[in-house]
């Protein structure tokens, strides 16, 4: 609420302090999806900045798929809502809205992140890649081509997030084993039941890149 001075949205609440209180280092926080893709310093810089913002709208510039986009957001607006509701970049999907399902996965400075669990103001100055920037129907990314070949999608609502997660996974693990694929892609959920196709698609795309 704009007129209340307590709670996570208020200037008095420091997320940096919160993380410190948990004793979470940058590596642990990144692994847990709390501070996707960033160092503690970057997060701290974003924190310093966002602490001065609000409660009303503020104008920020986001670097999305290599293009600078100006957007007005309140500090409480998530990156996901800024993308979908204000910039009409709707490939990242809103499903659980609390960092469980991965349907909103984007890349932040090349690392996968849940866009629902990051504020838009924190994303300023970071290189954001959304599904729209990974490939196009005319020029597919190898993982997208593999998703089609292995029918790794049904309703397709989890697909953009899964594709982003798979692309990031393959960058870190160019020659994964089947077991590594199964272990490494647990951060995304599908309801139609496309995991068998996704597993094959990831292994196949790794092969395309010259992997095992």
């Amino acid at each position, binding site marked *: 609420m704009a007129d209340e001075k307590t709670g996570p949205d208020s200037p008095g609440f420091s997320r940096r302090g919160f993380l410190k209180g948990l004793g979470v280092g940058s590596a642990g926080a990144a692994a847990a999806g709390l501070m996707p893709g960033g160092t503690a310093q970057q997060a701290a810089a974003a924190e310093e900045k966002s602490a001065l913002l609000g409660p009303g709208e503020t104008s920020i510039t986001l670097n999305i798929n290599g293009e600078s986009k100006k957007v007005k957001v309140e500090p409480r607006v998530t990156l996901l*809502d800024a993308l979908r509701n204000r910039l009409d970049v709707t490939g990242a999907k809103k*499903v659980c809205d609390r960092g469980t399902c991965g349907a909103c996965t984007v890349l932040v400075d090349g690392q996968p992140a849940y866009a629902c669990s990051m504020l838009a103001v924190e994303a300023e100055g970071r290189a954001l890649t959304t599904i729209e920037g990974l490939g196009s129907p005319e020029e597919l990314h190898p993982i997208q081509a593999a998703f089609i070949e292995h*029918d790794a*999608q049904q309703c*397709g*609502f989890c697909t953009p997030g899964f594709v982003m997660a798979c692309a990031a996974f393959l960058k870190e693990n160019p020659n994964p084993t089947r077991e590594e694929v199964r272990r490494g892609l647990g951060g995304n959920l599908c*309801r*139609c*039941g496309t995991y068998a196709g996704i597993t094959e698609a990831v292994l196949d795309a790794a092969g395309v890149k010259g992997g095992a």
Partner: protein
Amino acid sequence: MANPQWPAVEKRQHLGKPYDRLDGAIKSTGRAKYAYDVNRPGMLWARCIGSPHAAAKVVDIDGTDALAVPGVEGFWRDEGVIGKEVEYAGQIIAAIAATSEELAAEAMHRVKITYEKMEHQVVDNDISFAKGRPASRDEGDVEIALGEAATISEGHYGIAAITHCCLEAHGQVAEVRDGAMYIWPSTQNVSKYADGLNESVDSPLSDIHVDCQYMGGGFGSKFGHDKWGMIGCILAKQTGKPVKIMLERDLELMVAGNRPSAFGTVKVGLDGEGKIHAFDAQVWGTGGGGGYRPPPMPYAFTKLPNQRVAGSRIPTNRGSQRAWRAPGHPQGCLITMAALADAAAAMGMDELEVFKKNLEYTEHPETYAEELDIAAEMIGYKDKAHLRSALTDGPVKRGLGVSIHQWGGMGHPSECDVTIHPDGSVEAKIGSQDLGTATRTSITIVLAETVGLPMDAVKVKMGKNAYPVSGASGGSTTIGGVSASTRLAATNALNALLEVAAPRLGVAVDALEAAEGTIRETANPSNAMTWTEACGLLGVSPITKRGENVAGESQKMGLIDQGVGGVQIADVSVDVETGVVTINEMVAVQDCGLIVNMKTAESQVYGGLIMGVTYALFEECVYDAATGRMLNPDMEFYRLAGLYDVGNLKVHMMTGPRYDSRGVIGLGEPPVISPGAAISNAVANAIGVRVPELPLTPERVLNALGGTA
């Protein structure tokens, strides 16, 4: 003259081949626009307000303070509920629309609703809460038969209520423009979505335009426009602005449908040979406040000579049930197959052997016999199987479990228009929808096959209520409906073209066929003209012909049919120290008649297995008896299986003349029916005792091992 029967196998260009889904690229690149993604200029965001109480009288709903918040532009309240009772937590009784999603989320708390709390009842597993006369069926003489049986086994079984958890929540965008209503919903029923809305929002049906090209999952929960659809249209009319209304995840899980629970006790009597002599069951469960149809039992073994089943409804203050992929079947299957496996174990027999001995009591004995042998071979049954009395060594026990299932799958009513244009282009228009089953691709295959052209030479337009009426996608009825109507429409259009081409080729219409991009004389293929040349003869007038699927007639023609059988076997490991169940492998062998697209047909079966693993191990709507609320209306605690949980899956589709000659039969439901039963049986085989209720959580497994289940 082309006839509508499916071409002989050797003449098929497209049917049954493994095609990539046509919208694969647009989906995997994030370009597909779902209802949730539709943003219109000046659009408002709506939020629904649900009752926090499971039972209460609504005294008043006052939106004054909410409307005073700058940016809040629309308010709706349920006039009908004021002075009356809400029947479950989450029941939607008001909504607001605001200029941003954040504002709507904030201002909804300013709506003042006064309740008088009442007593609620949400317990669904205790038969003492049952109301009304049980529905019962009694065939043969169960009492005498039980007296004659060589072995009697008795057990308790159950399966919790679960929800659909569509990744795209229910909802729509509605916009009033030039006096007409434009709606982009997430729906399984494009043609009939507007039915009833016309009265609620005072617009004639002719002025309501529905468009759904992609939808993020339905599974039986998205057949109507629902209350929120009506609210969205009312708010759009009230404010004169487009309104997006999508359920929040908590409401999605509480009020947008669930699969009824089922609990029961079953007594099975086997004769000395392992033939089932008696089946006596009592089942109960809840579908919320609405009706409750007991699951079909004895499942699959429907023709047992002596059977008695009584089913009781437990009314609860929970959101109402909806069709959930194969309504009633997974529940009936679990209870029946578990009881039969327990009877086999009590007799010291292998359950696969007992199932095989009793196939004469099923509706598809030959199919099951063939499928069980294939499935057993695929999973290595002979080497891995052991009796329940002979457990594997060590703290991690391994076991196999078997289940069989059946489904109808007859094609629904469907109409399709096919147009052949003078430039040679061909299009089908059909008011159907693609839920992710690749319906768009299947229609394209049938169309291309019929006119003898490549896939990319024909277009399918669907997903709008402006197109010919096609049925709701539920009950595995879509593939039969749309393939018959498309085949008939395309055949009719083609025959009109052949009439025009025949004089030029100097033969009778009957002597012609469309194949490989030509119109040619069947007996003398060199007497031909290209498809484009033939269409050029049309001058300026395209041909448009309609095809209509009337199930009985299409069935007589051999286009479609109903009634399939499938079998599944699960291989699991159970850690008896932690209670954790791991799926090692599952195999599914499935019949669905003539297969239109092998690749996406297999995907349906993989999907069924995976959804099945999810409800077998994790899914459960947990209700708190004290507050009447669902405790896990979010995706952390309403858990879905992840990639790591599902194990290795193998799928085998039945093909060959015996299956192919039946025509097209639906496939969406069958593969999701057996996993719960197969996995439960495998766990029992692994640890030597039955874990009575699904989901098979570590707690339930440990309780069963400790004798306290």
